[in-house]
């Protein structure tokens, strides 16, 4: 464990932050500009994982395992969300033969 900690601490904190921010931005931009619902889904996952990365990094540097516990929660919830979300997408595809979000305008009118 202490070995792992040491390895992790080889990389300075700001790199973790940068990677995490980059990942999060990629996720946000993907969500905003892609039209395929599955891609958007994956971008959401990227955003979640960028946060996970941050949590793990901070927990290592602060010697506090709470952050890692929280990561497990996030992963579990994300998995559940993916299951439900994909199921919905499948149903939508069966109905309108498309997963393009521009075609999903049933909320209006």
């Amino acid at each position, binding site marked *: 464990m202490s070995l792992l900690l040491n390895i992790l601490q080889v990389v300075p904190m700001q790199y973790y932050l940068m990677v995490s921010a980059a990942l999060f931005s990629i996720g*946000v931009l993907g*969500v*905003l*500009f892609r*039209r395929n619902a599955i891609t958007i889904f994956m971008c959401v996952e990227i955003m979640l994982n960028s946060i996970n990365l941050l949590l793990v990094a901070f927990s290592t540097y602060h010697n506090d395992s709470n952050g890692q516990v929280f990561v497990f929660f996030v992963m579990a919830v994300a998995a559940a969300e993916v299951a439900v979300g994909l199921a919905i997408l499948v149903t939508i595809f069966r109905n309108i033969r498309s997963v393009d*979000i*521009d075609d*999903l*305008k*049933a*909320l*209006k*009118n």
Partner: protein
Amino acid sequence: MTGLYILILSPLVGFLINGLLGKKLPKAVSGALSSVAILVPFFIALNFFLGFNSGTQVKIDQDVYQWISIGEFNIGFGLLLDQLSSLWLIIITGIGFLIHLYSVSYMHDDEAFSKFFAYLNLFVFFMLVLVLGNNLLITFIGWEGVGLCSYLLIGFWYKNGAYNDAANKAFIMNRIGDLGFLIGIFMIMFYFKTLHFGALKEALGSVHVSHGLIIAITMCLFIGVTGKSAQLPLYTWLPDAMAGPTPVSALIHAATMVTAGIYLISRTDFLFLQAPETMTVIAVIGAATALFAATIGVLQNDIKKVLAYSTVSQLGLMFLALGVGAFSTGVFHVLTHAFFKACLFLGAGSVIHALHGEQDIRNMGGLQKNMPITFLTFLISSIAIAGVPPFSGFFSKDEILAAVFEHNKVLWAVASLASLLTAFYMFRLVFLTFYGNFRGTEDQKHHLHESPWQITVPLTVLALFAAIAGVMGLPEIVSHHHWLKSFLSPVLTPNPHAGHAIGNSEEWMLIGIATTLALGAISYAFVKYISKKELPAAEGTLTGFSNLVYQKYKIDELYSFIIVQPLQRLSVTAYSLFDKVIVDGGVEGVAIAVMSIGKRVRTIQTGNIGYYLLMMVLGIASILAYVFLK
């Protein structure tokens, strides 16, 4: 006490049965039922009355149950039976029964027969509540109840719009007065902490209140009285109230309800005696009303209108008597007036019935041959109201005049003039209706007939009492015992302001003057309408002052001009300005604003998820920016 319960509840039971089951009952049953519902109380009332007279009956003043209880303040639902209320009970139930009997025949062809009797019974019930209440609130309940029944019965033939207007007028006019009454009650409640008549009388001695307050309270009560008893300036509803069926006019608008004001003042005489200023106002208003209404009566051509103005005038005389502190005299005139005026109204009803609804005396005449009983009873009552000795009206009117004479000579002159006019217009009515030749249509002439026994029996009984009721109060010069005065002495407060009794010679002089005036007026009417065979002027031919009097001094128009029309204009202005512009503008303005904002905002909702997400991200980013950069 049981007797009292039966007495007061019997008309209510009659009302409930007639009101709920009336349509299913045959007319004979319905009429008999409600008549019996008044006859039973009459015998009980008679029993009470005779008991009081012989001294065996004691005063009953008892709360049936505790009604309103607020802290220290209690109002019981209580009954009070004493000499004063027993007299009214006799009048209400006795004359009430005769009029019920009369109505059985009079209303026989009316489709709402049972409804009529239901209302009449309800009226009698409320009238009994009024005179039997032991505190002002119960009296007020009865007061409002009789007002309601009056309204219902004036507008009984509700399909006629004018009759409905008359009913509304009566109700609204009374409402003005009732407000005064109510304020008076509130003031008494606030300052004396009781509404019970007996307790109030005691409280008046112990609670210290200013003289001005007593004047204010009595004036408020008197305002209530002017409404109910048709005095200036609230009298105009009573002549219009003649729209109701004639028995109603006789019972409610001559014999009982309109005398409720006299009852109230006599009941609270201890209060009024503390306020001589109010008493003066009452006397002046009474005298003014007596003369004013009498002058109008002289020129009216509708047989019931003449009697209505006569009633207003006679009520004025009663208030004049009360105003000079002669309470028992006022009550005396209530009693005699109830007999002869009820008889006159019923007689008029009999005539109207025989002529199939004709009410204009210009189209009558010569009826004495065809309707001897109606004629005779009408004549007796007219002599009584004119004040010719030894008929009842003479004694009560003479007593009023004597009481006023020792108080104020001007008021006496006014009252004498009113009596003179009374004698004139009553005999004008008699001569035009019953003498000369018949002036109606051939068809009416063909059907002229005396009315059936249900009508003639009440007429006869009432005429009998109209003739002899004067023995209740023989003047001092004839008899040393004034029965009514001594009968009422346990109830009425002796007047501390009363002057010396007038001497014998003066009394004889007053009697002489009154009798001469009455006989003179009758002779003048005889010369005018029998010897010269004059007829009242046709519509629209009167000019000048007589036209003004014929138009009832245009008082209705005056009220319409100074009260009704400004009020209507105010309503119209308030409607168009306040309601239409401010209220509607405000409410609709809000709605319009919301709608137009909504119209613009709804374009944001594109339904495009990408757009929503962008907005969400921008929102979160701006919140973060705000949090970190502030």
